[in-house]
């Protein structure tokens, strides 16, 4: 048993995979914004990545046990920040999601993902992996569900949905049994159906966005139009793609926001099936490596922290790529490590930092 930490225990292999993905991201952002008013965003993305790396190293230095000890307090603070958003929030693009601190815009809902990963890990680690009672399950639901509703009201459907996989992973790994999960699934379906038809929870445009993927021709201007352009972009890429900066859909301004939510479509158009396959393989390797780290973690709480991060990343990849290829509705969830955007990059690196944190302490007890 060692009592000291060394960066030799840092997961350099994982970091290498991540940086390879980041390089592809910067190149694709450069290509996708070449002829738009967003030109130059790839350099901003480089700064975000560098900032993310620094944050990751810093974050991995703090012992996650200490973080888990403090997590109820952190949860409380961020919960109040979420409550404060509708009151003192800064409004942009029709939604109130930000709190202005000095010149910085701070988005509590984005940070809350990280807090939830830690809080859920702590909660189920304390239960110790035995069979859960209904009371314990409902507590977990309240812990995740109430912030979810607050974020949904902002309105920010995409971010609030990313809280869900954290809960699902926690319940699954924390010891829910088959009967309980079946009951929950049925109850969930009924609830979603009720919420959908009541029309209170979702705004009409959110509903339209959610359904348009079933029949994109139904809505050639709004979300359906975006989806259709995305399908044309990906499909016309073929096996080998049209070449960097040569995608007609991407360069011709047909593809909506090709550097952010639809970056995978731009990639699929310009680098074809081969390029898309390679990127998915990278994601798969990263996720598998993370799960391996969860297996070797020193204790249950560490494993649960990593698996929380795995759950969020997997969910984001599935929903974003699924959206681009027409399997999923348009929800505005970015592709981690690929899409342009400071908060997405920062969150992903911090989640990876939490995983690194656990790995570095796998021999310490």
């Amino acid at each position, binding site marked *: 048993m060692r009592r000291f930490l060394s960066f030799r225990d840092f997961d350099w292999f994982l970091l290498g995979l991540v940086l390879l993905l980041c390089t592809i991201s910067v190149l694709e952002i450069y290509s996708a914004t070449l*002829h*738009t*008013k967003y030109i130059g965003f790839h350099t901003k993305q480089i700064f975000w990545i560098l900032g993310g790396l620094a944050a990751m190293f810093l974050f991995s230095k703090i012992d996650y046990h200490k973080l*888990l*000890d403090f997590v*109820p307090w952190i949860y409380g603070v961020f919960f109040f920040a979420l409550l404060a958003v509708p009151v003192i929030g800064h409004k942009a693009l029709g939604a109130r999601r930000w709190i202005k601190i000095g010149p910085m815009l701070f988005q509590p809902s984005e940070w809350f993902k990280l807090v939830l990963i830690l809080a859920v890990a*702590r909660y189920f*680690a*304390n239960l*110790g*992996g035995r069979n859960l009672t209904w009371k314990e399950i409902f507590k977990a639901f309240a812990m995740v569900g109430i912030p979810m509703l607050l974020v949904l009201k902002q309105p920010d459907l995409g971010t609030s949905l990313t809280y869900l996989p954290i809960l699902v*992973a926690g319940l*699954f*790994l924390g010891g829910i049994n088959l009967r309980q999960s079946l009951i929950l699934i049925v109850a969930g379906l009924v609830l979603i159906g009720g919420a959908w038809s009541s029309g209170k929870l979702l705004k009409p445009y959110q509903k339209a966005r959610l359904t348009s993927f079933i029949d994109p021709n139904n809505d*050639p*201007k709004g979300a359906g139009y975006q989806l259709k352009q995305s*399908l*044309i*972009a*990906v*499909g*016309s*890429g*073929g*096996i080998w793609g049209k070449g960097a900066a040569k995608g*007609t*859909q991407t*360069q*011709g*301004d*047909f593809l909506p926001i090709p550097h952010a939510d639809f970056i995978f479509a731009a990639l*699929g158009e310009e680098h*074809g*099936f081969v390029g*898309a*396959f390679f990127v*998915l393989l990278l*994601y*798969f390797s990263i*996720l*598998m490596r993370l*799960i391996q780290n*969860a*297996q070797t973690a*020193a*204790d*249950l*709480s560490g*494993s*649960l922290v990593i*698996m929380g991060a*795995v759950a969020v990343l*997997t969910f984001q*990849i*599935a929903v974003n*790529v*699924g959206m681009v*290829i*027409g*399997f999923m509705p348009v929800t505005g969830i970015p592709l981690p490590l690929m899409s342009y955007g400071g908060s997405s990059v920062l969150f992903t690196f911090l989640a990876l930092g939490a995983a690194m944190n656990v790995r570095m302490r796998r021999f310490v007890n």
Partner: protein
Amino acid sequence: MPIDRINRDEKLPALKLVAVQYGILLMMLALLSGLWRLQVLGAENYRLQAEQNRIRKVPVLAARGKLFDRENHLLVDNYPSVSCFLLREQIRNADIDLPLIAKGLNLDLEQLQATLRRYKTAPGYQPIPIKQDISADETAFIEAHRNELPELETIDEERRLYPRDGFASHLIGYVGEISEEDLNLPRFAYNEPGDVVGKAGVEETYDPLLRGEDGSRDVIVDSHGREVGYLRTQHATPGQDLKLTLDIDIQRAAELALGAANGAVVAMDPRNGEILALVSHPSYDPNAFSVRINRTDWNNLITNPNHPLMNKAIQDQLAPGSTFKIIMSAAGMQEGVAQTLRVNCAGGGSFYGRFFKCDHHHGSIDIHEAIPMSCDTYFYTLAQRLGIDTIAKWATNFGISQKTGIDLPDEKAGLMPSTQWEMKNFHQKYYAGNTISVGIGQGETQVTPMQLLRALSGIASNGHLVRPHVVDSNQLPAQFRQTVLDNFPGSGDRDVPLQPDTWMTITDGMAAATTPGLYHTAEAAHIEGVDFAGKTGTAQVVGGGDTHTKGGSHTPNAWFVGMVPRRNPEFAVVVLQEHGDWGSGSALIAQKIVLAYVNKKRKAEGNLQPDRAGADKPVEVGAIWSESSTRPRGQSQKDAARSAPEALHAGHFFVQPDPTPKVVASSLFPWPGWFTHYQPLRFKEKHP
């Protein structure tokens, strides 16, 4: 509660982790199968769609809101126009087509090539505007050559039509294509290159309301750019029409009165800050901007030494000259110094070892004479008594050295020296001798015409200062109203409490300035029967000394601020003539504008001034309009006769001049001049 240490030996069941791994593998395979379906199986189909079935968005441009004056006279209109664009995506070999295009559109071939070169770095999908406002013949040419020249595209738009000859151009502003720098500003976040936005004046401030929302037409084009149909049209939402506070008649009078002189005129209602006229000379023709302005015209505008693009009413910062003496008087009265101050003017006086000159030998005078005579010696002495910081305090109270908050872009703040200012900018103690010059509005003090007008009319309104504005805010959406207030910060509406004697003395002094009398500076601007008050200013320019050569660059700037009536004025006007020599000249310009206002009011009340009949004789007033039309409904003639003080003879009124002067501050004509008799008789209803 620290985390349970007991559970530290617990591990995740390996089986569950393996299940998760298989779950992720399954998801990846599903995504890959989706990609396979699109990119391998459907590649040919989608490639065809990408090539052939491209949807091109053709903008449907929104008409900008029209501008009206306060009486709903149309000021700025739109007219339909067609512009021609070149789509580069469709060009196979541009150089071959260019001569034909140039010939058909009556363009210079070299100029056309230069335009294309300018857009070389722009994104490929962006259409290049090659000619705007094309004629019917040229439209026909494009239609006739649809197949040979598919790269030409016409767009119908509504183009701005401004008044000719630069009428009110600085207030209205102009529109133009958005610049590269503007595109990076947050408030233009939703704009694209090529959008037309307001660039100055009301057009800029109220651009978000005026511009409306562009619609679009989704045109399906084949790979050669030929239209094969269109999906649907989203109609444009036209911009909101705006009613300005401007009065077209007053504006016209002001433009005519200022004539060819360089300078500015602003007329305002000091009760609410509504701008009735705003002139800045020399002017420019905003119509030249609405079609792309050509380079030589633009160069002429920006190199003209008289700065035609500058809105002098709010951007010209100059020494206020003697008009500043009103602020000095207010400071002196409020501080209790001026009431008792009596100065012997012997053509000047010595202060701090230097002789400061006055225009006349005014003799022994007090504040009541010093204002109309504009005696420098008196105000030198007052300035010395008050000291620079007291003067600065009161000037700042009255809005000098702060923006007024008028809703026009790029207002300047002016400058008021003080010991603090001197220390901050020159790191030295303020030289007390400079205070003497400040006392007569010279020295470092700089004001804009707008500031001066607001300050002086504010003092005449018993310290009630207003935020000037050119658009009535009642017609604005509440949120936008707040945005305007936030974007144009300034000293705004404020009340500076004045002592009654301050108010009386200063207003009477200004009224005396325009009445004939020895050394009264604006006596030539006297308007018989109108309670007209004002103050002249002859501000020497730097290096100018005492030269009075009309129009020369060393000639003093001529100021005048005038208002009617003297107390609680309802109309105030500032006139600035750059290098216009004496302020009394500006007073004559102000007189014409005030007369235009007074006559307009008379006309509105059916009370136009006939030829002069003699000031003291009773004047007969026509019975037609005074008998029935003005009487409140439901009142019998008998009641009316009883309640009316005037004698009623067979349908004719004879009105005697009232010999006793009475001050009715709220009325325009409180003085017993003959004009008073022409006011329509109003039969007051009796309340038992």
